[in-house]
């Protein structure tokens, strides 16, 4: 059932996916090469330049302590990306393993893991991350663990579903019959077949992790205050919204753009990898 607009839609959606990839690449470059790209030290205070307007010297102006906003935005990309990628690795590995085990063995193991997942899914993700972060103490590593653990249920559900649907396939049953160990079957036969949904889940979760980090930093419960982070910048600028609204607007815009890019990229990936949807966008 092809409608007139659908060709344009395919073009538009591919075009947005392309744009999101470029945007993600830019932010990753900013994160990796932050020390080379920052015009100033993001922590250097310069009180005479307090709340300075954008100029050739300070492209985005200065914050309430006279720190260069451009440099802080670039360093903020590093904070965001680092926390998001590490927490995704932590949550992804833990969730994938648990989902795999739950789906493969079934029975009591499955029930225990799934009810635990349900319980974690009953608590809002930001509250869960906040609770775990507080319990572990405030540091960047602990924040990564907290955000990672709070994202675990998404991977468990996805991986369990994948495992349940592949474990009765002929090639898995054959591997069982010729005497492969359970761990070998899971690692060599079931996991590789679940790689594409796993990548899609992880990509979409990257946006979620960036959002979680920014929200916690906004509340003052994220990265330690001395590390430049976009969420902290939005919250610091809030006191000056009448005189210098850009202090909050610019870092917030960065958060939205990068989360949007990961969401669109994740959707694009899913459509490309899912043969059911492919071609019918």
């Amino acid at each position, binding site marked *: 059932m092809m409608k007139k607009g659908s060709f344009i839609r395919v073009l538009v959606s591919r075009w947005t996916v392309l744009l999101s990839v470029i945007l993600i690449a830019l932010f990753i470059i900013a994160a990796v090469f932050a020390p080379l790209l920052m015009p100033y030290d993001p922590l250097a205070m310069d009180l005479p330049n307090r709340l300075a307007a954008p100029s050739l010297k300070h492209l985005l102006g200065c914050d309430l302590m006279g720190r260069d906003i451009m440099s802080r935005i670039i360093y903020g990309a590093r904070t965001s990306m680092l926390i998001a990628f590490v927490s995704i690795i932590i949550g992804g590995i833990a969730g994938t393993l648990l989902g795999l085990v739950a789906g493969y063995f079934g029975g009591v193991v499955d029930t225990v893991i799934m009810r635990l997942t349900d319980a974690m899914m009953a608590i809002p993700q930001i509250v869960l991350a906040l*609770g775990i972060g507080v319990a572990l103490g405030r540091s960047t590593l602990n924040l990564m663990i907290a955000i990672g653990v709070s994202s675990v249920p998404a991977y468990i559900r996805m991986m369990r579903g994948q495992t349940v649907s592949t474990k009765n396939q002929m090639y898995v049953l054959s591997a069982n019959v010729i005497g492969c160990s359970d761990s070998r079957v899971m690692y060599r036969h079931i996991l590789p077949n679940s790689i594409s949904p796993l990548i899609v889940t992880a990509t979409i979760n990257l946006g979620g992790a960036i959002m979680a980090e920014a929200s916690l930093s906004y509340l003052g419960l994220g990265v330690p205050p001395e590390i430049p982070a976009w969420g902290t910048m939005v919250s610091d600028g809030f006191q000056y919204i009448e005189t210098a609204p850009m202090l909050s607007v610019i870092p917030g815009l960065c958060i939205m753009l990068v989360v949007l890019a990961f969401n669109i990229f994740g959707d694009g990936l899913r459509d490309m990898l899912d043969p059911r949807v492919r071609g019918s966008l």
Partner: protein
Amino acid sequence: MTQYIVKKIFQALLVLLIVTFISYLIMELIPGDAVDFLLGLEATPEKAAALRASLNLDKPFIVRYFMWLGGLFRGDMGTSIFYNDSVTNILVKKLLVTFRMGFAALIISTVVGITLGVVSAVNRGGFWDNLISFFANIGISIPAFWLGILFIILFAVKMKVLPVQGYTDPSADFWLHTKQMVMPVIVTAVGALSSMVRQTRSAVLETISQDYVRTAREKGLRERAILIKHVLRNALIPILTLLGMQIRVLFGGVVIVENIFAIPGMGRLLVNSVFNRDITVVQGCILIMGIVVIIANLLVDVSYGFVDPRIREIKDVA
């Protein structure tokens, strides 16, 4: 059907028990306890030991967990060391504020979200679809705290049509209350609304391509009848599933939004209590949020049975 409902209730109770354990465990891991807070610099080993014993802090973890759990059954969630009041009392006051706001956001996000999702799917590929999908994508990506600040800059600072922040009880000044709640409710609703649009759109598109819809169209039914009787009824299951999950998302949003707009609800209480190290209050907040989400999901599970006779029968056999 009864068997299905009973099974779901038992599952929900089990999950609830695990939630109580998680919320107790998380707070237990925090270094330092209430005694350090209460005594501060005056702490001597003897005083600390005596106070610990009186607060039962000298008992092992699992014993204290069961004592706390026992208290929960009597509606006793412990005492706040910061407010020096029972946690139940504090929470009841804050709950009403949060519920009123969350409920308004839920209604808006569901009604507007489903409507826009259907419009988007019916006009698939057209102008309205592209426009709605574009804004839905932005809506799920926009940080609530930033959207809140943009709203404040636009409507409170520049246009001066709404108050910046604050909260007035509706019984004191209903008009001011309404004006103060406009921005927080919309900001809370945006994320949930956008995911509702996307879910509805894909659910409707999935059903529209089914054979029975083609049959209905070919036997000459009007588009409106097809949409309501055949498409929407069948697209209802995925929409219901999302509706259950929305409560969790809305609670997450409320935590942020209450802090931007200085609304004295549960979200603000939770964050303040984290800063105050007021552990019993934090436990209480996590628990209440968990209970509400679990009840919402239970209602969704039960309603599946009413909406879809297939689920009712399959589950009864299994």
